[in-house]
């Protein structure tokens, strides 16, 4: 029973609204391993599924394409990072970055990585250079929410390596540490450069960093590459010696290591906002492959519709609004769909988080298959109103959300 509680197929649409005659694109993931799903277009006339509601009411809209489709599970890559693909061949390298970790010790986290050569915080939050699995560390974990300059060097010709950490001026007195040693020689660092993550063997990003990073520098063969995060705020670009981009929308315009409290708006003094805040559970776009394109009938009335997906378990509805064709007045009343609110509450997880809900509400929390689906799939990301999963777990179950 538990297994069938949640839908065997899920998905999302490219757009929240469409007009009659337009094509909508669905991206579908079949979770139950069955490899097939049915899709139909329905008009939703009632969505109130609470105990005193009218229940879900829908009308089937007949479509031409065959209703059964082949599909597969599509992965979600959770966690933000930056990537620079255009780099020359690399030899001996130096890497340097300013870091303000929020979760040192949560798990191994990559600050900068070039294939098998990685500047990391290890499982204990200790700055480490890792080369093909061998590690050289400073032996002193970073404090959370303090700025450090972290640097590393590695020479593939003889394996000589260095790891260094200096706290920036602040309210603690950790000393600078430099450790030199030897790691496995012959391991060649390779593009792309990932900032705040590393590449897993399967090609996905992994080892995501939680916290702020600023001013990454890469040195190789007499060349110096650097990036300046105060530029490109408001875009997905990172600006520097070589072009790069962010993935999964890390937070821009955050206070950097030089912020002195004199400004509270990045536009007044961007140089004080030269950091990017990365989160291991950021998700902007799951980038699933398009699975299904549906041409909406020209005669479709405006209203609430859904592409209804079915395999095992309950159906999954990809809701959207059909608005009238431009220029044609079709009704006396205009309805403005609350799409911003829908998005702010999408993937709302707090109903499932332990807390004193019924103390304040006077009744038990009620949850449904959507809540359980989200609990089974942390990789689907969180709503605007949820804290980060890592933060929630760090604070423990007694934290009042």
């Amino acid at each position, binding site marked *: 029973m538990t297994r069938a509680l949640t839908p065997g197929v899920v998905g999302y649409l490219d757009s929240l609204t469409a007009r009659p005659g337009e094509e909508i694109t669905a991206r579908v993931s079949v979770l139950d391993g069955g490899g097939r799903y049915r899709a139909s277009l329905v008009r939703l006339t009632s969505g109130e599924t609470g105990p005193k509601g009218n229940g879900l009411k829908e009308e089937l809209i007949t479509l031409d394409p065959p209703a059964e489709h082949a599909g597969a599970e599509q992965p979600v890559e959770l966690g933000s990072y930056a990537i620079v693909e255009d780099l020359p061949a690399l030899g001996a390298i130096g890497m340097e970055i300013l870091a303000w970790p929020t979760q040192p010790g949560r798990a191994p986290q990559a600050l900068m990585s070039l294939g098998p050569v990685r500047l990391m915080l290890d499982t204990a939050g200790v700055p480490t250079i890792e080369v093909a699995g061998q590690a050289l560390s400073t032996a002193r974990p970073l404090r959370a929410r303090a700025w450090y300059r972290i640097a590393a060097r590695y020479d593939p010709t003889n394996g000589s390596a260095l790891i260094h950490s200096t706290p920036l001026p602040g309210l603690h007195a950790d000393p600078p540490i430099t450790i030199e040693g030897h790691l496995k020689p012959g391991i060649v660092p390779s593009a792309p450069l990932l900032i705040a993550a590393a590449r897993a063997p399967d090609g996905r990003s992994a080892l995501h960093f939680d916290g702020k990073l600023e001013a990454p520098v890469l040195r190789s063969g007499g060349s110096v590459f650097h990036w300046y995060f105060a530029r490109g705020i408001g875009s997905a670009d990172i600006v520097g010696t070589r072009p790069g981009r962010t993935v999964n929308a890390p937070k821009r315009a955050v206070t950097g290591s030089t912020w002195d409290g004199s400004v509270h708006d990045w536009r007044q003094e961007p140089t004080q906002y030269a950091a990017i805040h990365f989160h291991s559970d950021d998700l902007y776009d799951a980038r699933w492959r398009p699975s299904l394109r549906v041409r909406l009938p020209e005669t479709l009335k405006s209203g609430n519709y859904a592409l209804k997906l079915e395999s095992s378990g309950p159906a999954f509805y990809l809701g959207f609004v059909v608005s009238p064709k431009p220029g044609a007045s079709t009704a006396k009343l205009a309805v403005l769909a609350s799409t911003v609110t829908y998005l702010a509450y999408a993937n709302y997880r707090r109903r499932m988080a332990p807390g*004193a809900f019924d103390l304040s509400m006077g009744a038990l929390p009620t949850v449904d298959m959507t809540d359980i689906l989200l609990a089974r799939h942390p990789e689907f990301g969180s709503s605007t109103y949820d804290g980060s999963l890592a933060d929630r777990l760090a604070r423990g179950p007694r934290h009042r959300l």
Partner: protein
Amino acid sequence: VSAPKIDPTRLDLAREYRACPMGRHSPELQALLDIMRHPDHHQNLVLVSVAPGKWVLGQRQTNGAPPVLFEEEVFEHIEDGEWAAFKRRWQALTGQALVIP
């Protein structure tokens, strides 16, 4: 702060709750419910909609995992689910099963 235990002889309060699980309660029943709903005692219970008009009790997990479902009892009215949670919490707080003649 350790919350006081509830009085297992106050079956009148249990009857009042059974008659009207949601809405305005007497001050004594409200005080009892406040103890039951305290994070030390609420057992992280939720009502889970398993089908239209069908509910079971569940227990939320502190590690983000899906809730454990108590599927032996399926409720067709949400008030019956609230009552089942009340009985579970009563038993945990008093050490006695709640039986109302």
